[in-house]
């Protein structure tokens, strides 16, 4: 078994575009859930409207890339407003169901045959980020010794981590301000906040929009890194995986989602590599695990891991139990 390449692949994905997308999505969820207590299960929807806003603007309507980015952000803002009005007054469980339902509606609409002239049906849209890659200052592979990125990946890597850093800075400065204090208080008990004269609905809406903007960034990066949008990339699982990353790193902490996304992708790729090479060199007999099955083991482990995390360490790997958002006990 080639431990070296398994490890270096895992490192590459822990620091590469995959982790960036998840870190941004999870930063958004952190604003929603970690700080405000909004159980948004529709982050995939925010990612999708931004990504499709960009992709369709450029690839379908021939608009410039930056106009596409603006449209993507605008679409995410609109989604937050449309989604917020009916759902923000709801109890956590209704909110979760309503948001997951809207994300699913969006995925079905983007994948629909009827609208394939705009969104490309199940094939989606491709080649809309040339402007982005034209700005690439790297002309050759970026080598980190243990692993390396292609010139394009290196550019995504650079811009992506810059955005992640900027997002963390924004979250940090917001959450130490009185504004952030109101959000955290809403998470604890919104009626108490109301009784003190704060417009809870307005704050929740602001939080939904802010988190949705980070979701939009995640959607852009996902679309740009592969120069392609397809509906299956925006299924509910991506929201749940982003939650897993958030909980892994610790909800309600500025760097929690980033650390979580890095660990999540390291483990995903490492386990994927480990089991597929174990199955292919017949360390594990074929009857027990075929190659296809080997690729599933890591997802089984994600499920079990999410359960264990929530039960035994709801504060995440580095979190402090006294300040976590969710009552896992």
């Amino acid at each position, binding site marked *: 078994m080639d431990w070296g390449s398994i490890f270096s692949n895992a490192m590459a994905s822990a620091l590469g575009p995959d982790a960036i997308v998840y870190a941004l999505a999870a930063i958004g969820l952190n604003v929603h859930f970690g700080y405000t207590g909004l159980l948004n299960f529709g982050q995939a929807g925010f990612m999708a409207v931004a990504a499709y806003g960009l992709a369709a603007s450029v690839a379908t309507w021939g608009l410039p890339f930056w106009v596409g980015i603006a449209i993507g952000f605008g679409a995410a803002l609109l989604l937050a407003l449309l989604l917020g009005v009916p759902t923000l007054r709801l109890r956590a469980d209704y909110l979760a169901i309503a948001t997951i339902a809207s994300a699913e509606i969006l995925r079905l609409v983007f994948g629909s045959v009827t609208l394939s002239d705009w969104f490309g049906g199940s094939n989606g849209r491709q080649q809309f980020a040339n402007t982005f890659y034209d700005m690439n200052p790297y002309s050759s592979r970026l080598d980190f010794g243990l692993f390396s990125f292609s010139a394009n990946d290196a550019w995504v890597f650079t811009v992506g981590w810059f955005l992640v850093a900027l997002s963390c800075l*924004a979250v940090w*400065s*917001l959450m130490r*301000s*009185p*504004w*952030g*204090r*109101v959000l*955290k*208080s809403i*998470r*604890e*008990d919104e*009626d*108490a*906040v*109301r*009784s*003190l*004269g*704060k*417009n*809870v609905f307005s704050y929740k809406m*602001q939080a939904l929009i*802010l988190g949705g903007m980070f979701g939009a960034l995640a959607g852009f990066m996902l679309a740009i890194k592969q120069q392609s949008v397809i509906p299956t990339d925006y299924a509910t699982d991506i929201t749940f995986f982003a939650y897993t990353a958030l909980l892994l790193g610790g909800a*309600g902490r500025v760097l929690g989602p980033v650390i979580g996304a890095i660990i999540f992708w390291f483990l995903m790729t490492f386990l994927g590599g480990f089991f597929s090479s174990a199955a292919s060199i017949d360390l594990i007999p074929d009857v027990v695990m075929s190659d296809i099955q080997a690729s599933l083991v890591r997802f089984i482990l994600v499920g079990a891991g999410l359960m264990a995390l929530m039960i035994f360490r709801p504060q995440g790997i580095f979190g402090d139990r*006294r*300040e*976590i*958002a969710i009552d896992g006990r």
Partner: protein
Amino acid sequence: MDVETSAKGREALASVPNTPGAPKPDPIVVGDGITRTFGGLTAVDVEHIEIQRGVITALIGPNGAGKTTLFNLLTGFDKPDAGDWSFNGNRLAGLPAFKVARLGMVRTFQLTKVLSKLTVIENMRLGATGQRGEHFWLSMLPPLWRAQEQANTERADDLLRRFKLDAKREDFAGSLSGGQRKLLEMARALMVDPELIMLDEPMAGVNPALKQSLLGHVKSLREEGRTVLFVEHDMDMVRDISDWVIVMAQGKIVAEGRPEQIMADPAVIDAYLGAHHDADLSELDEARIEAEATAELDQEAKND
């Protein structure tokens, strides 16, 4: 607002008749025809209510009388089926809870609502109104709100000292005892600087030693010229601190008067005793279903 107002208020009450819904000389809250039903149960059905300014009014009544529901309705946390009420002459019907609070009518909750994962001082700071740093865009520019935050913190520290919570300043509110939480909730409500403070069972679950100091705090609110409306079960407490008592039973106001008169009123004694005889229907129904179910399950267990 000072000692004078409250003394005047108390004097004025001397001439108020002991009838349910009696008009007061200087009411801060006036309500008419407020009703709220849950399914078939009428939880609140108040024809007329007035709360005198500058005094401590106690709202008493057996469990399920509708006191908490009335609080919820008056403060905008619940919507009545019908009714109209005003605070300082401002009509409140239909106003959301946060706007009611901003007008100066602040309530606490029967089950304390401290923000467990925030520190005591952060709980207090949250109470301050008109904070610039609570605006999204301004919040990212600390120089614009730091001075105000400092002033709020000083006010909060004063209150914490007064409520003897200063030692807990940096503790998480979730680590406080039940009594301390009640204190914190009251102190936090004062950060809003309310004219009328409504306390829902402020003494419930508080140990006797702390109770005395809580009583002192409630009285001191009156001395500051604030109006206090509070719900309490302990009759000694009510007698001790209140200037006026309103009695509710089955959603209605059944009696009003000065504490010593109320304690002697047969209607009140009836309301309390009566409550045990005909508790509301839904509870009875529940109790019956459960009793039945329990008996049958026990039977089943024996058969096994």
